[in-house]
């Protein structure tokens, strides 16, 4: 999992540099400064750099979803409890998703950053639910 995270960062860097190519070619500044807001003052780069980087990664990571699939063995009450625990959903929302899984065969429980989606899938597998990570088409 950790390795994948680093690969993601590598992809982000290359995409960012591609989009900022003219600037990068002209100004030989460290990557962290490029990633920060339009402020080249070396003494103020630390905090804003992290914020910018997180936002960019999030933007790149948006199209992922956590899907739970129907399983005739898992109890409905158990599945509802798992959704409440893992996603912090209120009972009625957890039940809606559980019923969607039951009637339609699957339900999208969450969508967002890939890294977090992986974590959710891992947690759901820990509760023995059939969960997959899918890219939003």
């Amino acid at each position, binding site marked *: *999992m950790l*390795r*994948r995270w680093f690969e993601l960062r590598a992809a982000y860097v290359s995409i960012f540099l591609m989009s900022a190519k003219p600037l990068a070619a002209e100004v030989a500044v460290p990557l962290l400064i490029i990633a920060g807001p339009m402020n080249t003052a070396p003494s103020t780069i630390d905090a804003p750099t992290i914020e910018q980087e997180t936002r960019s990664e999030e933007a790149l990571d948006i199209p992922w979803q956590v*899907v739970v699939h129907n399983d*005739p*063995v*898992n*109890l409905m*009450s*158990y599945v509802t*409890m798992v959704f409440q625990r893992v996603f912090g959903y209120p009972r009625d929302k957890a039940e809606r998703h559980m019923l969607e899984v039951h009637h339609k065969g699957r339900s999208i429980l969450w969508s967002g950053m890939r890294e977090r989606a*992986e974590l959710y*899938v*891992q947690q759901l*597998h*820990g*509760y*023995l639910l*059939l*969960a*997959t*990570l*899918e*890219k939003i088409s």
Partner: protein
Amino acid sequence: MEIRRRKNQIELSELDPFLAELLRQIPACANPEGAPRAEERIFSAPTNGSETEFCAEWKMYVEPELRRLFQTATHTVAGDLEQLNGNEKNLANRTVRIPTKHADAWLSALNQARLVIAAKNDFTETELNDHVHSPIGSRRDLSLFQVNFYGFLQEFILREMEC
């Protein structure tokens, strides 16, 4: 069998030898080893067939973690079930007390056992939902009864956890 909550314990009392034996089988039944279909269900794929590299990493890093998690739960349950050990003649009307702090471990072990038994027997959804007509006339019938009995225990524990 009677089942009730007593302070910080869930008490299964008046257990006849048959149900006591089913309880004793939980840890063994939860083990998917040697049954590929059960293994496949317990350690299901994290994607729908795509992302082969991610799946390989999952197998290498996540599956061992999950295996440990499941084994910890079954060990806890096995520990609680030691209350049933002893002279077989005294097995009738025995009582098992489950500390409520072990409730999660029981939920997990019961779920593992149900999934493994269902996968091994390839039960259909219709069979699993047939709670009325379950005469025990074969090994398969017994396995279905076992799945339903463990499901009943799960339901009770879940209800007690909500209280």
